[in-house]
């Protein structure tokens, strides 16, 4: 299927935004401007961009420890995100959350999450709310290959399948859980085989091809909106960086890393756009410049944002 120019450029721009935001995060973390843990999504951008292009603000997502990509793809504000990574008062969470805990209720972003697999039952809960309200909104749950070994995966998908909830479970299979290779944490090669346990559709797709991702997601989202229940989509991909910044990645085979770098989703998408005649090289460059500028603005915003006041420590423990 031929995707429209708006759609292709929109997804590509999201991918650029994620990549440039995170490339900067690398330096800012090294420069100790970003404290705490930083888990980068670089190399997996096509998944968040392709999936979120099926969603509107009324739709929900739950994200993970590796959440920047999902948040940006769902429309997250780069300024408030960067300020949060810096731990500043103008950040999404006023500096209380950091990289692993950013949410935006206006955009249906129910939060990155530091607990592996914790987003799954929460996503089922948001899907239940859509079902309860009888609207056609859906709930999308992102998680990794290794997270699919958590009990929450089983309980949340079983619940969603039993109640036919409008949920889409999206496994980003980058072949590792930290240092642990998929073949050493499960005994199957396709996580999508697990769909059978709940009587729902399960498909495996190239996660570095944004078009393939989008088409698979469209079908699952349409199914959910129709009231036909959840799906499990597995996107094969590769984490180009370490598990977190600072990880030496000694567990990776350099040849394999090299092969996957050659499959980087960004150049691939650029080629698709050029082949479709949607933009020429100059147009691509212009778009890249524009996004670079946005990221620079975000950094300036974060740099200029004040530190939280120590008295903020006691605020927002309870809702009024």
């Amino acid at each position, binding site marked *: 299927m031929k995707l429209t120019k708006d759609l292709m450029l929109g997804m590509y721009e999201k991918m650029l935004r994620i990549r440039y935001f995170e490339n900067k995060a690398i330096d800012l973390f090294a420069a100790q401007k970003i404290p705490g843990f930083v888990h980068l999504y670089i190399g997996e951008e096509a998944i968040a961009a392709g999936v979120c292009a099926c969603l509107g603000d009324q739709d929900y997502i739950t994200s993970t420890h590796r959440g920047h990509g999902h948040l940006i793809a769902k429309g997250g504000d780069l300024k408030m995100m960067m300020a949060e990574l810096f731990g500043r008062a103008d950040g999404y969470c*006023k500096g209380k959350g950091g990289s692993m*805990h950013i*949410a935006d*209720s206006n955009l249906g972003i129910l939060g990155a999450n530091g*607990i592996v697999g914790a987003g799954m039952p929460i996503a089922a*809960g948001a899907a239940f709310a859509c079902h309860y309200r009888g609207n056609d909104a859906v709930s999308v749950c992102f998680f990794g290959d290794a997270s699919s070994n958590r009990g929450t995966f089983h309980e949340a998908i079983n619940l969603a399948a039993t109640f036919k909830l409008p949920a889409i479970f999206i496994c980003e299979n980058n072949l590792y859980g930290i240092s642990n290779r998929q073949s050493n944490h499960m005994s199957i090669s396709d996580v999508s085989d697990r769909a059978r346990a709940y009587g729902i559709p399960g498909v495996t797709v190239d996660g570095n091809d944004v078009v393939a991702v989008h088409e698979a997601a469209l079908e699952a989202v349409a199914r959910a909106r129709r009231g036909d229940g959840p799906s499990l989509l597995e996107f094969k991909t590769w984490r180009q960086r370490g598990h977190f910044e600072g990880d030496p990645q000694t567990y990776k085979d350099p040849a394999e890393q090299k092969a996957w770098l050659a499959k980087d989703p960004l150049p691939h998408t650029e080629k698709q756009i050029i082949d479709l005649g949607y933009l020429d090289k100059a147009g691509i460059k212009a778009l890249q410049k524009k996004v670079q500028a946005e990221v620079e603005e975000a950094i300036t915003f974060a740099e200029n944002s004040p530190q939280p006041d120590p008295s903020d420590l006691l605020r927002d423990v309870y*809702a009024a």
Partner: protein
Amino acid sequence: MAMMSYMEALRDGMRIAMKNDPNVFLAGEDVGAFGGCFGQTQGLFEEFGPKRIIDTPISETAILGLATGAAAVGLRPIVEIMFVDFMGVCMDELLNNAAKMHYMFGGKISVPMVVRAPCGAGFSAAAQHSQSLDSWFAHIPGIKVVAPGSPADAKGLMLAAIRDNNPVIYLEHKGLFGMSGEVPEGDYEVPLGKADIKREGRDVTIVTWSAMVNKSLEAAKLLAQDGIEAEVLDLRSIAPLDTGAILDSVARTNRLVIVHEEVLTAGFGGEIAALVADKGFDLLDAPIKRVAPPDTPVPFSPVLEQAFIPQAPAIVAAVKELF
């Protein structure tokens, strides 16, 4: 006023809240036509139907997640965990998400949900179906914890809990389900965090909650026969804690005994003792005593279980040590 059982009262609270707010629903294992493991939800399925009274699979983590996710997007879930003992199965969802989302996200998302959990010993249900874990919940910033000890409080706290904008753990004591008492008609709330003097007395303050309120009142009667007038302060909520009420009472009596059904060590009694040993130190004429089960799992044998649960004579004995 009407005479009602504790169970009818908490059910009445759920019913009124559901009638007044379409965002309130109830989910849990066998809460539907079956009416709940102890009958707590009898009739609600017939009244509100399968859309709002939902039987779930045996998946406590998914149940807590269902509540957390639904609450985060604006519904007001009530979920039942069949025994509080099972909260260990879904503690992460409560500890790391429901309780912390509001704070972690800078106050931008709130999670108005109620987790109902039957607690307590007395039925030879043994070590995995008889516990009280009150202090665990009180140790989690971001949630509230209520533990009614009477039918009227059971209803009023239920209504207040459902309408609170935070996760609230509602500890319903299995041993009180059959207790009957006067319950106001219609819609009223017992504010979270307000203790109630169930018996006035000048000589000693007994701070307690849940099923131990009745045991303490029983002990107070016995003490009165010996001329000791005990004040029985029912906390009703342990989070927020009504520290003012505790200190005021001790200021009058100058003596404190704490009674709870959790095992002694690291039970919530320690928090109360610490509060008074700090802020109320000069009010005290005698040591602070705690009456609680020993540090053992709950045994099956009725003989052993009765030895485990604090009884009125033990409370009397503890009070008398202070004179």
